[in-house]
């Protein structure tokens, strides 16, 4: 398997009130093609910073991050924007969408902006509709973003992240703002995407979400303290056992 993401000796430092604050310290890990990796850790441990730094949305201080073979720290701003547009997808805890646009227009926005995705605007529209059908939100296509539920909105955000067929999805607490049912629905969609071959790196506090990933990284004070392999998630039958295993492992790690 090829690595989609390779992180080597990643450091991220902020200077705050003339004091150096090392948020990430020599972080090393990889994400393989089609793999789903969860990042867990206590609040302030650097989970989200890790996600944004390895996705090129934030600058790194030292180390090396290769995404699909490209050293993202050496890419210019515009090249990085192109990588984000065409090869990465982002899902956030809050369902961020552009106001004044319908759900459908929000989803196709990155596709229209991309010059790489094939099929012209007609093909992009077809792709968007297909994604919305799969996510079961085609009925709310023309709705305003304030007219739909949180779960529907998050599924729309997932559609948007997939619209340009990215190589990897970065998800920051994707179910953090959702109720139990919506959370389960959204996770099922993320798993389905992953099963279709898109790598996923997600940050979560939720053991039930982490249990559906292939590997869990545990981060404390900017260091990856441990890694736990769960194997590919196939179906719900093993879910309880996976949750127990992770729980035990996390307890051992000091969770």
């Amino acid at each position, binding site marked *: 398997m090829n690595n989609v993401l390779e992180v080597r000796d990643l450091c991220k430092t902020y200077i705050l009130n003339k004091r150096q604050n090392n948020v990430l310290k020599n972080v090393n890990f990889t994400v393989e093609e089609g793999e789903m990796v969860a990042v867990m850790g206590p609040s302030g441990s650097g989970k989200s910073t890790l996600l944004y730094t390895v996705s090129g949305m934030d600058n790194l201080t030292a180390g090396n991050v290769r995404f699909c073979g490209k050293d993202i720290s050496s890419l210019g701003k515009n090249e990085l924007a192109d990588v984000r547009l065409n090869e990465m997808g982002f899902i956030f805890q*809050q369902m961020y969408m552009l106001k*004044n646009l*319908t759900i459908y227009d929000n989803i196709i926005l990155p596709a229209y*902006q991309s010059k790489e995705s094939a099929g012209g*605007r007609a093909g992009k529209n077809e792709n968007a509709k297909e994604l919305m059908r799969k996510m079961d939100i085609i009925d709310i296509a023309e709705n305003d973003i*304030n007219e739909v539920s949180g779960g529907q909105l998050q599924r729309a955000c997932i559609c948007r992240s997939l619209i340009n067929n990215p190589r990897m999805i970065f998800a920051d607490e994707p179910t953090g703002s959702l109720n139990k049912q919506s959370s389960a629905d959204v996770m099922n969609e993320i798993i389905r995407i992953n099963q279709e071959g898109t790598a996923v790196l997600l940050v979560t506090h939720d053991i039930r979400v982490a249990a559906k990933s292939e590997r869990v990284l545990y981060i404390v004070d900017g260091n990856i303290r441990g890694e736990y392999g769960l194997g590919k998630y196939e179906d719900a039958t093993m879910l309880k056992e996976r949750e127990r295993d992770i729980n035990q492992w996390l307890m051992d790690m000091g969770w």
Partner: protein
Amino acid sequence: MNFIVLIFIIISTIFLASSVNNLLTTNSALSYFAEVTNVADFFLLTVSTDEVEAWADSKDYIGSLEKEKYIILETDEVRLGQKKYELTMTTALGKLPRDNNRITDAEDRVIQEMKPGEIGMSYVEAQQNDVEIGDEITIILKGKEKTFKVTYIFKDMLFGSAYMGVTRLIISDSDYEYLCTADTTIWDLYSFTTEEVTQLSSDINQENFMITYMFDRSALDSTYLLDLMIFSILIIVGICLICIAFVVLRFAIVFTLQEDYREIGIMKAIGLKDGNIKKIYLIKYLFIAIFGAVIGLILSIPFGELFMQTVRHQIVIKSAVNSLIISVLCAAGVVLLVIIFCYFSTGKVNKYTVIQAIRNGSTGERFRKKGLLKLNTRKQLPVVLYLAFNDILSNIRTYLVLILVFTLGALLVILPANASNTLQSDSVIDLFGIISTDVYIDNNRYSTYAGQEEQMISDLEELEALYLENGVELKLMAEKAFVAYAYLEDEENKIALSCIQGYRSTADEYIYLDGTAPRLENEIAVTRNTMERLGAEVGDYVYIRIGEETNQYIITASYQTMMNMGEQIRLSEAVPDDSSALSGLYTLQGQFQNREDIEGQIEVLKESTPDYKVRTVREYTDTMLKATRDTLLTMKYTILIIVMIINALISVLMCKSLFAKDVGTIALMKSMGFKDTAIRIWQAARIITVMLVSLAAGILISRPLDYVVGALTFGIMGASTIEMVVIVPEVYILYPAVLLAATILAAGISTLKVKKVGLKELGNIE
């Protein structure tokens, strides 16, 4: 944002204080000028005689009478250094007036003394010959010669306007006595103070004084019509600037407070009362407003002067004693307005629940479509432009305010520019009541043709032959002038008038306001001012005495002229004129028969008759309009620069306000892979689109408004039908492009902040 509010408070104070001051001072400018210079009520210019004083003694209603003596100068009697001095109007040389009709220096102080060797002239006269303080002027009179140093370029209500037809050079008493000899042409100026102007005029008409000019204060005021036109433009500009400033100020305050809604919500959440929250903002804005108003107050003085200095050269305008009080009141008004705006804007917070305030006034429940454009139906539109257009249509009320402000700005540039261009154009010759020809020639002998029509015809023929000899075929035409007396029914109410008749031109070649050109022996055209004075209308009969003969004529048309204070009669070519009554020529003009190389032919005329003044339409009209033209040109560019700066500031305000609201969305777009440039285009495109729409609206609205401005400005001069000149490349392309460029530049700079937006700003998304 608070800084931007401060800037607009400063701008509002500057505009309000300076415009209100200018409105008040211009409104009373002429009466103040008359008061300072003690201008009399009625004036009579006669060839020197002592009869008038004796006659006036018998009239009880005459309060006082002052007599001043003036030497009338001829062209070759004045030199500027080693150069020829051009007399563009009747030039009188006199002593310093001490009681009536005084003159003031550049600082508006009445001139009390002229020392031997000093000479002064009006601003308009100095402009005609490019005379500056310190220049040397030599007067050569009947064998006597004296060189003077120009020490004053003064303000002269009586003879300071280009439309008076008379100007005066003022020297010391001793120099006057030295130059005045028995054989110089002397005119007496009688200045009457009386409340019975009509009676006085009527009584003078019954006498046989050798009258050269006779006019009252209202006629004198009318010679400042072009200055009044500039005042009108200043008033329009002032009102527009005040409107712009207030609209933008309110906009800025509402925008700034909206930014703080979340903070207000949190304050409400922790238990602060609405009244306390309001106080915080009212005190904050009170301080900003006072600080801004003080700075604005200080800056309003030079800003107001910027416009007023254009007319201040010629007219005494009220001193700044009152204006400081007015400015302080205006500044206080701006502070009050800011507090009112702030009070009403914070008032909304009372109505909101805590959570609504935190959500920037949104309830969170909205079942209304906001976006009006659909991206998927705009297949060719770039995404960022779609976003910009969609934002505008989704917040149309906000953007309409901006469109209104920018449209006002565009009109502010376009309308005065069209008025200025019209005055700069050759078509302005219509205002002089004469026809447009290639050249206007002054052979320095206009007045010598009095009673000498045959001589005039012979001179014209000789001149044509001379030009032909030099290869130029020029058809010469002339306007013959007669002194006429007109009355409707009662001969006692007759008025003295200038009467003209075309020589080699027919009456139907001229432009009339209404009626038809006079063609028959008993038909005449009369200016509007004359009709008003006579109490006549088109179709009425009037009696006119020219020379010894009195005839009845029917008025077939009315027309306009800025000359002779707008009072004139035109005879048809069919009227057999009384050659002996000819008082001289009004104009001598020519049309080239060969239409090629007009400029070259003009050069030939100048070389053939170097002593004559050969002028184009532009040069001819410049003799009276130069000062006004220059003033309007300065105003045109000043207004353009001011509007450009205002637009740029509004663009910065808008971009910053929108940026503050959009920062979360920008972070989101960055996360989606939108490049900084694309996001900046989206941000700037909104304000640029608004500007483009406003410019288009401004251009469209300016067409009908041109006629309103034309009526307001040129109408003052009696020119109600002047065709406004629109120079499309300049007014509709260059100026809008300049305004657009300023907006693009301001928007481009303001959106630079997009680069600094990081992902952590996602939390700010609404």
